[in-house]
């Protein structure tokens, strides 16, 4: 599974639209499982499944009718499409709801039906464009488990998301994109390593002792400790024994700490390091960027 991570407007959906033949590329070319997205689009469409941001199901059809329709549009006969629909409904815990029109479904059920529709033809490659946006935490977890099961069965998945925890949990490899460009790619661990790996972080009881604490902790690393008010942190090579050592050094220097912890970098840190912007307040940043562009 490849996770494509980026803020709103980074170009994730556009990339998916190009790869699923919905949008011809302005320039350059792209291929999926060796099929060109423009020249071999019809053949490619038979090999891919797409579940998008909008839970694209017909609300006036039942769950079964939705899946049978999609199956028949893939060229299956009615009976075969029906059999596949039953299989998928069963798998996605929608068997009971299968006869009800989709309008009556909850958000999570619709997403599951949408995902089921993407799987009707058992495609080797699946595109999931922000599949959990707008879902409640429980539905989100359920969908994650379903996606993990698919990957375990050998489906190749391209997942776009603006949630770091989602990419971290699901993706084998992550491509971070920003303003239409891949700015980093690798495993979650590799990306985290790029922003400085593990750090030990201490919160001092008395902020005025921060300089002393930095001096006390300095021998633990080749890098200089960073001081931010009452918080002092330093990069460390490994986790084992680190907390004990930091606590001992502070104790020897007679400095009290409220908290000593080893902190692993999050993908938030990755994004911040790579772009100088926080993922979370991207919305505000974006409009500022737009203004800059207009001014330029």
């Amino acid at each position, binding site marked *: 599974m490849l996770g494509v991570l980026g803020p709103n407007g980074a170009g994730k959906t556009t990339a998916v639209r190009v790869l699923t033949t*919905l949008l011809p590329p302005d320039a350059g070319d792209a291929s999926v499982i060796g099929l060109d997205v423009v020249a071999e689009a019809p053949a490619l469409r038979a090999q891919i499944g797409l579940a998008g941001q909008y839970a694209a199901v017909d609300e006036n059809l039942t769950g079964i*009718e939705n899946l049978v329709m999609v199956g028949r549009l893939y060229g299956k006969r009615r009976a075969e499409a029906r059999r596949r629909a039953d299989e998928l409904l069963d798998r996605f815990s929608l068997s009971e709801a299968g006869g009800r029109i989709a309008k009556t479904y909850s958000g999570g059920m619709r997403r599951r039906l949408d995902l089921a529709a993407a799987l009707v033809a058992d495609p080797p490659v699946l595109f999931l464009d922000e599949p959990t946006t707008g879902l409640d935490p429980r539905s989100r977890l359920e969908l994650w488990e379903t996606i993990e099961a698919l990957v375990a069965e050998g489906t190749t998945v391209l997942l776009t998301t603006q949630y770091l925890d989602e990419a971290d949990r699901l993706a084998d490899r992550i491509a971070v994109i920003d303003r239409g460009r891949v700015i980093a790619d690798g495993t979650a661990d590799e990306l985290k390593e790029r922003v400085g790996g593990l750090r030990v972080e201490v919160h001092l009881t008395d902020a005025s002792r921060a300089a002393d604490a930095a001096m006390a902790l300095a021998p633990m690393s080749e890098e200089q400790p960073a001081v931010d008010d009452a918080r002092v942190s330093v990069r460390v090579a490994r986790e084992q024994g680190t907390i004990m050592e930091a606590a001992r050094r502070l104790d020897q220097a007679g400095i009290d700490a409220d908290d000593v912890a080893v902190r692993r970098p999050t993908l938030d840190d990755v994004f911040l390091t790579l772009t100088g912007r926080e993922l979370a307040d991207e919305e505000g940043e974006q409009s500022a960027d737009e203004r800059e562009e207009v001014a330029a």
Partner: protein
Amino acid sequence: MSRFVPDTLVMAERNLVRLPRSPDLLIGFTIQPVMFVLLFAFVFGGAISTPGFDYIDFLIPGIIVQNTAFGGFVTALGLAEDLTKGLIDRFRSLPTSRASVLAGRTLADVVTNSLSIVILVGTGLIIGFSFQTGILEILAGFALLLLFGYAFSWIFALIGMSVSSPEAANGIGFTIIFPITFISSAFVPVESMPAGLEKFAEINPITIVVDAMRALWLGVPAGNNVWGAVVWCLVLIAIFAPLAVRKYRRTAGR
């Protein structure tokens, strides 16, 4: 292209299956046109002079044509809705024939138009309309209505693919198409209109089709109107079907 026919049938079936589940649409096809017939026949009928005709006889072919023009409206609404809901993206990501989504829509309209036409003719017969011609002409009239409705379905398909929301489709339908159907011979003789409007009404395809219907059902001499009407319908399809399909191929979601 070999998938065009089966895919189109799947899409048509989808549109027909969901119809009874949208009672508001169903009312639009059945009760609303009947209400218009009754309003025109009994509220305006006494005030409109139609020399040589009983107003009911004059009205029924006209109002059925007007109603049939709007039969395809559900196509515009449905496509606009499919676009906003992301269904068009789903269909476009499937290995379907590119024209089948729209062809299925317009084909479903033929079925609903048939229903509306039968209901309207029945209503007409109850309030005093009578056919003045033979069975062949009457059937030819039904066929012309369906062809005409099909042509308008493609116009609405293009509208549906071009607008941003179902509400916008509604707006265009009622501000552009509605007046065009009224500035015609559907409800009043065109000679009663001011000169400018009369000119427009005379070349309006609606007038041509309405006159052809009066020829086929009432036996009024129609000149070349029947064939003229058929040609008009075919020309509309030849223009709007490729435009709508082209729009479908290129349209992005939302």
